[in-house]
């Protein structure tokens, strides 16, 4: 840390007059030797004055409302007799304990739910075997009502649109063998 950096670190306390003897002597000495730090010191003094003036100006129009005293008395009277600091202390303690307890319970619940879902997940299906019998592709669009049934017939692919209700009844003729799909 350079002398200038050390000085900047002490600047506010130097202005406050709250430095111990050692740092105070260092700051005073440096102030006399370094033009840049002297300018910074004077600028901070000026800045503090300008800020004070502007902040006072910003709140110049405000004044305590006339019924403040009555409002305070009313608020004090409305406080239940038993609502002393002990009661507030207990309420604070309960709130302090409940919040982390609630958060912990919620976390444990989420973890348990996660493992429960994992344990009850069905076994993955064994390797799919190619269907026997007449070779058809049935494509059912999940959000559509139409079901397309493609089947091979005399080396051509036929596309039949059947409704989802009639898919089961759309039986295929026995002469349909298992072909290699042709597109």
């Amino acid at each position, binding site marked *: 840390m350079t002398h200038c950096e050390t000085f900047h670190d002490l600047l506010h306390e130097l202005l406050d007059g709250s430095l111990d003897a050692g740092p105070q002597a260092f700051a005073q000495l440096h102030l006399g030797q370094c033009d840049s730090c002297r300018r910074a010191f004077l600028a901070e003094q000026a800045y503090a004055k300008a800020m004070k003036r502007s902040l006072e100006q910003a709140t110049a129009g405000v004044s305590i409302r006339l019924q*403040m005293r009555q409002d305070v008395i009313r608020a004090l009277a409305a406080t239940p007799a038993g609502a002393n600091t002990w009661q507030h202390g207990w309420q604070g303690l309960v709130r302090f304990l409940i919040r982390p307890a609630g958060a912990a319970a919620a976390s444990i619940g989420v973890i348990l739910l996660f493992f429960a879902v994992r344990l009850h997940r069905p076994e993955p299906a064994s390797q799919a075997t190619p269907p026997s019998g007449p070779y058809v592709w049935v494509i059912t669009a999940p959000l559509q009502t139409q079901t397309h049934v493609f089947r091979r017939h005399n080396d051509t692919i036929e596309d039949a649109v059947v409704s989802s209700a009639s898919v089961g009844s759309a039986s295929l003729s026995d002469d349909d063998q298992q072909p290699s799909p042709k597109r």
Partner: protein
Amino acid sequence: MDEVQPVSTPMQPASLDLQDLIDSHGERLLRSACLLCGDETEAQDLVQETFVQALKSAHRFRGDSAIYTWLHGILLNLCRRHLRKQKRLVFEEEPLLKESSPPSPVDESDRDFCAAGLAVALRKLSPEHREVIVLRYYEEMKIEEIARQIGASKGTVKSRLHYAVRHLEKLLPKEMNLFASSDTYHQKP
């Protein structure tokens, strides 16, 4: 004639007279509350609550600090709680803080312009930054007093002050030359 009778409630010790407290510290507390929360009506309520809390816990005031410092500590806690609540509400509804643009420098004097611009910029700072600005430059507290008041180390206060001033500088309109003469904050402390 409620105005002239001395206030005596079961919770109020004889040493703390409400009217004295209001007369001596009310205005200054209110201005500080205005700067901290950015709204005069809310500031009035916060100051009222400060007096209520002060009278209720008067037995805990041991005179270690000035009575104003003690009152301001209560106000600061109330402001923090209020701003936390308000922050939660802002997420649910529209922002509650009234946004106003600084007046044109042509319309008002430079000083009014500076003050209005500063008030608007101050509202845009984070509560922590606003706090140190108000305590340092409005309340003119020493660094160690601020540290005690907000429960942080002196290093934290100085660092927070540094960043708060730099942020404020960015938020202020270019026409405001409040910071022009200061090169203190161009270097990290």
